[in-house]
């Protein structure tokens, strides 16, 4: 019945639709993209034409091919980072909330420290110190700065669940702590976990774009963020190459919106108080 609610939820379907679209784009990039995204042998700064539907960059690369290939990196960073963040949240939140005691106090303090540190500045500083540029450090930086809020949510959920009668009944039934966590606590938080996953993916996509736009990624990879970086660097708008500047941003916004919609929809389904119509 939760699945039905999800499938009939307009936001969920819109989000899933966009996500599937980009996933197809990323998966089929070698087949759909007209050229290699790193091929620099085209005339630079072309406007849209039949040969180059979205024109070329200042370096003579095909913008459409870059957009299509760029979806790969962005999706991978979004999903991998969200998985890592969710994993950390799950461990820190549930472990602290269920075990309690000094372990919880240490984990809570850690969470609060990361929570009060402003995300973007911290990210920029960490990224600036990471000497190897590329996708992996970006994932690392976003993960380190992005797990705290969700961990706190999960911790408070765990505390609530832990004192529920069915958990206490399971204790009386002789269940071990870890079986209780795995068979009662985690399944009862599944909705929040999924919602948090999409929230983290949204955060990751936007953060990646921001870092790469600032030149803190590897500027030689093809991603929407580095496209923005080069478009800005080479003054695409001054040259009238608006599609080069605007479309990567639109893609980032669309993918972010998809994750945001899914996050909200799952929240809505598992938390009926939020449901309106």
């Amino acid at each position, binding site marked *: 019945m939760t699945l039905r609610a999800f499938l009939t939820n307009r936001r969920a379907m819109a989000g899933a639709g966009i996500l599937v679209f980009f996933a197809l784009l990323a998966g089929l990039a070698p087949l759909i993209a007209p050229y290699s995204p790193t091929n620099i042998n085209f005339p630079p700064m072309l406007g849209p034409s039949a040969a180059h539907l979205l024109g070329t960059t200042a370096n003579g690369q095909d913008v459409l091919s870059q957009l299509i290939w760029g979806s790969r990196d962005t999706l991978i960073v979004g999903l991998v980072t969200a998985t890592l963040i969710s994993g950390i949240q799950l461990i820190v939140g549930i472990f602290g909330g269920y075990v309690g005691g000094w372990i919880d106090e240490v984990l809570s303090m850690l969470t609060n420290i990361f929570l009060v540190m402003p995300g973007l500045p911290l990210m920029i500083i960490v990224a600036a110190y990471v000497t190897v540029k590329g996708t992996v450090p970006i994932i690392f930086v976003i993960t380190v700065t992005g797990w705290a809020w969700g961990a706190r949510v999960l911790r408070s959920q765990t505390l609530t669940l832990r004192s529920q009668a069915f958990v206490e009944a399971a204790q009386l*039934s002789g269940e071990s702590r870890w079986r209780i966590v795995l068979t009662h606590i985690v399944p009862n938080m599944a909705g929040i976990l999924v919602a948090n996953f999409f929230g983290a993916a949204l955060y990751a996509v936007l953060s990646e774009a921001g870092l790469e736009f600032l030149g803190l990624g590897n500027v030689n990879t093809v991603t929407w963020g580095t496209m923005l970086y080069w478009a800005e660097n080479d003054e695409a708008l001054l040259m009238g190459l608006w599609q080069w500047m605007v479309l990567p941003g639109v893609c980032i916004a669309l993918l972010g919106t998809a994750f945001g919609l899914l996050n909200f929809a799952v929240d809505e389904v598992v938390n009926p108080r939020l449901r309106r119509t």
Partner: protein
Amino acid sequence: MTAPVQAAPEGSATTDSALVLEVRGLSKSFTVGSIGRRRRVRALNGVDLRLERGEVLGLVGESGSGKTTFARALAFLDSPTGGEIWLEGVRQPLQPTPRDLHRYRSRVQMIFQDPYASLDRLHTVYRTLSQPLRSFRIAPASQTRAACAELLESVGLVPATDFLDRYPHELSGGQRQRVGIARALAARPALILADEPTSMLDVSIRLTIMNLLLDLQQGRALSLIFITHDLAGANYVSDRIAILYAGHLLEIGPASALMHDPYHPYTQLLRKAAPDPQGGFRRGERFDASGEPPDLTELAPGCPFVPRCPQARAACHPHLPAWRELGGQHRVRCVLYD
């Protein structure tokens, strides 16, 4: 009553083997409030009880009197802060290890008040019942399903195969509580703590559930602590009744004695509030319960019932009245009977 063995080492044995449970001076306080404004809620204050094999004890008190705290302390869901718990002649450590707890809970089980909150909505009946069967090694894996079916039959959910694979939302409140009872039975305990097991059920099925509990209790020589706020209900199921007020026991004795010849003014008050099967309601008298239960953070030294007691006198104030023996296991803690 035997004199309490002073400072008996944990794990040592008493002599009386008919005793399933003996509780001495059981206390539980909660620390509430944030740093700087911490206060102690003294929810349970020196409760003494003895329970024999196959005996049903009704624990009666109004809301907030500490009934749930007592059951939870006895089930080690909240560790008691003081006192002794002796189970089947063995003293239990108040800071039990997981192993202690496992052994203890194979003998002491609990039925929860809320049949909705006490079942995991994501687990089928089978899954819920197989938990204790597996962890207490009651049935080998190959026979878990048959053992679950047997449990369901014993609580009147027949045909059992219809219920095994149901989720809680496919059960009525009464059926859920039957599953809760089956879960408590699964461990084959010596003692079951039933915390107001019928208070959240439709009035029409309360009696059925009480009768079911009694049948099961008699068939298995189970000891049962039946917690309720209703003296008449306690009288219906119990051999003996204990009256709890502000975490203190005030009167204890044979059920019929407390029902028909209550001594403590608080028991008398409860008696007037209880629906009377013979005389019917005397509405005018219904709960002249002037006042609330006392603030458990600042209990005065005397009898806790003083502020509401129609017969309070100077002797009630200085200290808690001692127990007076009234004969036939009936005891009361009130200065009126000096």
